[in-house]
Structure formats: C-alpha cells, structure tokens
C-alpha cells in the first residue's frame, strides 16, 4: 500500500502531473507574545490526501482556520483554487467556502436543531450552487446515506454518540459537494474501532468524489492509512515532510517521537 519510491521523487511525480489546489506560503500568526505559526508552508495537490501532524497546542487548528477565513493570519499568502484568500471580500469568501468543506475538531453540530436541520443549514445560503432547491430532502438523504446514518435524520445531536456526531458532521460537510475537505482531527476522542470506520469513510468519500483532503491528526494509525504525504508542524514551521515510512524511520528524535506508540 505504501510505495517504496523515495519521497522526493514521489512529490516530484505528483507535482509534475497535478497543480496545487491549495497553497500556503510563509504563514505567520501570533496571539500576543505566543508565536504559534512562524512561517508555515504547504502545497496540497489535486486529489491527494495530505496529513499534518503536530503536538497538541502546536497550532494545527489555528493553521487550518486560516484556510477558511475563521482566523486572520498576521502575514503570509494563502491561495485556494487559484484565488488569493486574504484579498477576497465577504461574498467571494462565502462562494469559495462552498468548495471547501471543514470538519470541526469537536463536530460542532447545532445542538438546538435536528440532524435534518443541521444538514439543511449550509444549503440556506448556498442554493446558487445547486440552482434553486425547493425540496432539500434528496440532498440530505444522499449525504446521510454516504455516512450510513439515514435512520438518524430526525434525532437531536444530544441523542447521538460521539462517533455518530462525527459522521453527521461529515455529512454536513459533504452536502455542498466540496472539492477540498479540511479535517481537523477527524478521529480525536473516538475509540479505535470507530476511528477506523471514520477513516474508511474518509477514503470512500475521496474515491467517490475525488476530493483533495488536508487531514490534521496525531493518530498514527490514521496517518498510516490515509496519508500519501505527511508534513510535521513543529515550532510553527513545516519542520519535516515525507512519506509515512520515511518519517517513521527518521533519525531525528523530534520526528520519531510522533511515531512511537
């Protein structure tokens, strides 16, 4: 499953065939004296799964929130599907957001709404993408079917288990059929079996819709299964990048620490 070609060649291969759909250059962000990102770079190529690993508190969530306009970086350049993210106005940003799905670390389901209403919510403002939709039921059902939870359509989030919540959140992300999906720790807080199910879902989605995925995780199993490439975020920079095999066999202590179980 994991290719034996050296990483540098792998990356060259990908880069020669595809163009980056998402690009971050020299991203910097500090909260007061707390410098979180100090010149972070990455390129996400079309159709690939890129995993970002980093310690808790290393700024992974801050970085991924900069990609969707939830956090404003201090400096740097972010390009998504050829557009300079930081120069977009609100309308253009919202339009771009229909192409970029975001799975929140804690699922972030609206707990005053049913599962159906949760899924319909993104459709309220993004109807232009599908034309005018009078009946959203087929879209909602398709998204729920994709995550195997059609039966939960009328439940409230409080009635769902953690794993089910994560799947509903994934369905809510998918309902707009995004080209890029940003996953913020899709398996955190879940047991190993449920984690596997979520990972399997992520791979199915990628195959079915040919999405490009940026996956933040510190779950080694998740990284092993989904990652084509891995970037390590340490001290606010992209400290190292490589394939799973290369990184897990690295001589650098800081890098190896991630892969010890």
């Amino acid at each position, binding site marked *: 499953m994991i290719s034996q070609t050296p990483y540098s060649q792998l990356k060259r291969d990908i880069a020669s065939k595809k163009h980056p759909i998402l690009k971050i250059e020299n991203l910097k962000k500090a909260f007061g004296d707390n410098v979180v990102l100090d010149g972070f770079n990455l390129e996400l190529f079309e159709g690939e799964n890129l995993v970002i690993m980093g310690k808790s508190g290393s700024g992974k969530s801050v970085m991924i929130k900069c990609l969707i306009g*939830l956090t404003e970086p201090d400096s740097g350049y972010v390009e998504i599907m050829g557009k300079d993210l930081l120069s977009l106005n609100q309308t253009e940003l*919202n339009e771009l957001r229909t192409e970029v799905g975001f799975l*929140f*670390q804690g699922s972030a*389901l*609206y707990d005053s709404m049913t599962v159906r209403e949760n899924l319909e919510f993104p459709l*309220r*403002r993004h109807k232009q993408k599908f034309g005018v939709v009078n009946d959203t039921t087929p879209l909602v059902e398709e998204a729920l079917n994709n995550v195997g939870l059609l039966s939960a359509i009328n439940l409230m989030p409080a009635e769902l288990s953690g794993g089910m919540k994560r799947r509903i959140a994934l369905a809510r992300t998918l309902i707009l059929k995004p080209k890029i999906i940003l996953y913020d720790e899709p398996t955190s807080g879940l047991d190993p079996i449920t984690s596997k199910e979520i990972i399997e879902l992520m791979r199915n989605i990628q195959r079915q819709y040919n999405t490009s995925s940026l996956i933040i995780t510190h779950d080694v199993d998740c990284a092993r299964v989904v990652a084509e490439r891995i970037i390590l975020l340490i001290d606010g920079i992209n400290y190292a990048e490589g394939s799973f095999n290369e990184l897990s066999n690295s001589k650098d202590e800081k890098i190896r620490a991630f892969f010890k179980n």
Partner: protein
Amino acid sequence: MMGTGNIERFFIEIGDFSYFTKRFFKEVFTRPFEFKELLKQCYNIGNKSLLLVSVTAFIIGLVITLQTRPTLQEFGAEAWMPSMVSISIIREIGPVIIALTFAGRIASGIGAELGSMRVTEQIDAMEVSGTNPFKYLVVTRVVATTLMLPILVIIGDAIALYGSFIVENLKGDVSLTLYFTKAINALSYTDIIPATIKTFFFGFAIGMVGCYKGFNCEKGTVGVGLAANSAVVFASMLLFILDFIAVFITDIFFEI
C-alpha cells in the same frame, strides 16, 4: 483589590460593548433578514418568561397593597388606594421589577446559549456555511427582547393591578369595575408613554448584554458559566443606569 488593571479592563469592556452595539445597528438594517428565526426567538423568549413575570407581578401587586393600606387607612384615605397603586406600578415598579426578572431569566439564558455555541465552535460552523452568525443569532435575539419586554410589562402591570384589587376586595369590599375605573382614571399619558418607551430600551439592553457576553465567551466550560453570570450582573446594572436616565429625561420634559 481594585487595581488599575480592573479599571482598565472595565473601560476596555465598555469599548468592546459599544463596538458590538454599533455592529448591531449596521447589521439590523441590511439584507438578508432572518424573519423566521426572529419569530422563533420572540416565541421562545416570551414563552420562557411569561409565567415568571406573571407570578412576580402578581406578588408585587399584593405586597404593595398590603403594606400601603394601613398607612392610608390612618389618614382615612383608602379610597386613594387604586390610584396610588396604579401610578406607582405603571410608572416605575412594573417596568423595573419585570425588566429585572426578565434580565435574570433571558440575559443569562442567551449568555449561556451563545456561550456554549461559541465554545463548541457552532458559531464558527455557521460562519463557514455562509450564514452570518451575528445576523442569525445576535440580531434576531436583540430585536426579540426589544419587542417582547414591553408586551410582558403591559401584561405584568395588568396582573399586578389585579393582585392589588384582590387585596382591596377582601379588605375593603371594592368591585372590579370600580377598582379599575379608579386605577385607570388616575393615569395620564405622561405616566404611560415614558414608562412604555423606556421598556423598549430595557429590552434592547438586556438582549444586547446577553448576546455580547455569549458571543465573546472565553473558551472552556468555565467561560460559559461566567458569560451567563456576568450577563445578568451587567444587564441589571445597565437597567438601573437607563432607568435613572429615563426618569431624568421624563422629569425635564413633563414636569416643568
């Protein structure tokens, strides 16, 4: 200890709150309007506080009458009872007590609700899915409290007067028609209009403070409790300040 840090933080908070209020006025008049959500909030807010307001108002009516009656009786002035009670309830006690009750119920409720939405990233999720959370959550709630409090005060005033009537009826044997005729005749527009106008401001302040505290809630579950708690404290304080200003202005315009 009240160091400079505290004073500084107080003024920063005032500044933030003013900015938040300015944003409200910018967003309330621009499209898209969230009418459906506004109606839902009006219903929720009214429904949540109606019983509480009614009970409080009824008891206030009873208590004022029971306590004032002996004094008036001493001067043989029981006949003035309905007029006295109605003026004091409509002008001051009704709006202030009901607004305080409302603040306790609604400002904390909104603070906790929006606070937990902030902490669990539901507000961020709204933003990402293209809905402006300020419009959807804040504008609807503030408009709803601004509209609902005056209605609740009118209902509460009527119930308080009814409570007062019950005492009068038991002790002094006055009929309902006579009592309310006297009570209403005692009122002039200068009692009713300023008192009603100020309840809109009270409702606005309560919604605004609840939303401000919730929307800017600190991360962590402690933050949610703090948001709910400080919303009530801040809202009650603001109510007294607004009431003082209202009484002051009324005095200038109507009493000279």
